[in-house]
């Protein structure tokens, strides 16, 4: 069982992701904005974080950067979730330090598969 941080401002999507992760047997910490995400990551030391790109407080990219800058959180793999599909967005996300970039709408089943595969690599 791994601890996964879910940072997503849209409550419906947050609940969906949390539901699927619980179902897969993971412990989930969920927050609704970027600042809370950074705080929760420092506090809980999750094994992986799923972070929405467009969030109040800090954007997903900024969260990524903030996590990379802090030694305790620098090694947490981050999957970015985004409803934006502009060419170049995914490159920017990966440059900010994310390990994967998922465009909304996504298949919750596939998202959980990606989580499992990243956790296995650790």
């Amino acid at each position, binding site marked *: 069982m791994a601890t996964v941080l879910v940072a997503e401002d*849209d409550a419906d999507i947050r609940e969906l992701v949390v539901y699927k992760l619980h179902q897969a047997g993971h412990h989930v910490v969920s927050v609704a904005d970027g600042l809370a995400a950074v705080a929760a990551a420092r506090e809980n030391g999750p094994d992986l974080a799923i972070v929405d790109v467009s969030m109040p407080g800090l954007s997903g990219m900024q969260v990524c950067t903030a996590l990379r800058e802090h030694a305790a959180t620098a090694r947490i793999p981050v999957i970015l979730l985004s409803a934006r599909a502009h060419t170049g967005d995914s490159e920017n996300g990966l440059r900010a330090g994310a390990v994967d970039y998922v465009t909304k709408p996504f298949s919750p089943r596939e998202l959980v598969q990606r989580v499992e595969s990243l956790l296995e690599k650790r």
Partner: protein
Amino acid sequence: MSARPAPVARSGMRTARRLAAELLTGDFAPHEGPLSHRGLLRRAWPFALVGLATLIMFAFPTTQVSDHATLYVAAGLTAALIAAVAFVPWHRLPEWTQAAVPFGFLGVIALLRESTGGAAGFAVLVFLPVLWLALYGAAWQLATSIVLVALVFLAPTFIIGAPTYPASGLGRIALWPIAAAVVGGSTHRLVAAERARAAFVSGLLSAATEQSIIATDPNGLITVFNRGAERMFGYPADEMIGKVTPLVLHDPDEVAARAAELGVAPSVEVITAQARRGRAETREWTCVRRDGSRLRVSLSIAPYYDAMGELHGFVKIGTDVTERAAAEQLKDEFVALISHELRTPLSSIIGYLEVLCDDTTGPLTSRQRQFLDVVDRNARRQLRLVSDLLFVSQVDAGRVRLHLDYVDVAELAKAAIEAAQPRAKAASVTLQLEADDTTTLRGDPDRLGQIIDNLLTNAIKFTPAGGLIDVRITGNTDTVAIEVSDTGVGIPAAEQQQLFTRFFRASTATSRAIPGIGLGLTIVKAIVDAHRGTVSVTSAEGNGTTFRIYLPRSVQ
């Protein structure tokens, strides 16, 4: 380079200084023809020299002067003519009045000849006023000048009874006004052509009030700054011409960034680097007005060369695109917002549907599952629409980026057919694939898949039940061809040209109420263009349609 006439001098000292400057420089601006005041001053200087030389000449005892009084009159008349040239406001008088000056000088020559008892040496001087008259290019000045020249030659004979020339001597002397007339006439034509060209250029510069036209010398120093540039940047031309480079108009940060990109120092070279290599270039720059406000300018820059082929400078034509850039940014933000706001609820719909269909919350009846399939299908249709709109906005902004990889087009076609099979079955249409073995190219797999998807979607929509859709993928040395033919309703010939225009819907689609918004083929064309390929269509109403796409093996 200003087309404005030089103001008439108010003081003698200033005029004398200007005259001296013009005598020294001898700078004939090409657009200043016989009419301009400056041109008049310049043409008068040979006479001034003649007058001076004559007075000096008579100071030597070797020169035979038979009539000193006439000589003084000649000198006085020369001085009066020079003064008239300098101080008469010629630009307010009709053009023909200027002819008084050469006429006056012809009189001076006649007086000089008379005062020396008809010495033939002065006859040569008629060249100068006759040349001047011929520059007007009008027959009356020429005819009058010939009569006056005759009078000049004969003046000593009439007045003091000096001996006439022998016939051969007269002939030689007559050559001078004829030569002057020929030279003057030719010069007039050249000057007239040059003036017309210069007037055209000057008109162009003045007429372009919405465009900035700035020319520089090869070192970047501004040589032309038109009205449009004055209006656009808020600097008067006389503060710019010969004093600064266009760099003062540019945002320093942007110049520094571009300099780093080009690997050059952040100088005016940043703007002219491409043009210096002989390549005309158009790009958008952020510029700064005199008042510090910023504007976005689309700047086209090209080199220009002199008659010897040497670089003479650069011409930059700028259009203020601030409003357009702001509108584009607004549109981009709007599209991004819409995309975000539409995709987020679709994410919930599609995600929760998947959870439901995965049976994790309890078993569904087959009827419930059927309903959820309808919801899913429609949600995905809406998602496709949002994606298409977003893609088209990226095409508009020139931001279509390909993620290149080696891709087997036949495999893409197989996958596309597989995905389209349920829709084809529902429409009772048969899908068929024929493919060569060698259909691999370097391209963007997702985008190329989208091409085949879009063509198949259209073919299924427009082919009646029982029809056939044939997908053929073939390859030769340089290209891979995708051909999608159907036995559908076809496209009227008159509409085929507009097929790739966004939001265009063929009458065969609207009359049959076939759903769609007219973006599918626009996207196909944009993707094919991005791959440097070609797309064409052959169709006859009622006889089906074939789309043919040729893609190069490698996108260069």
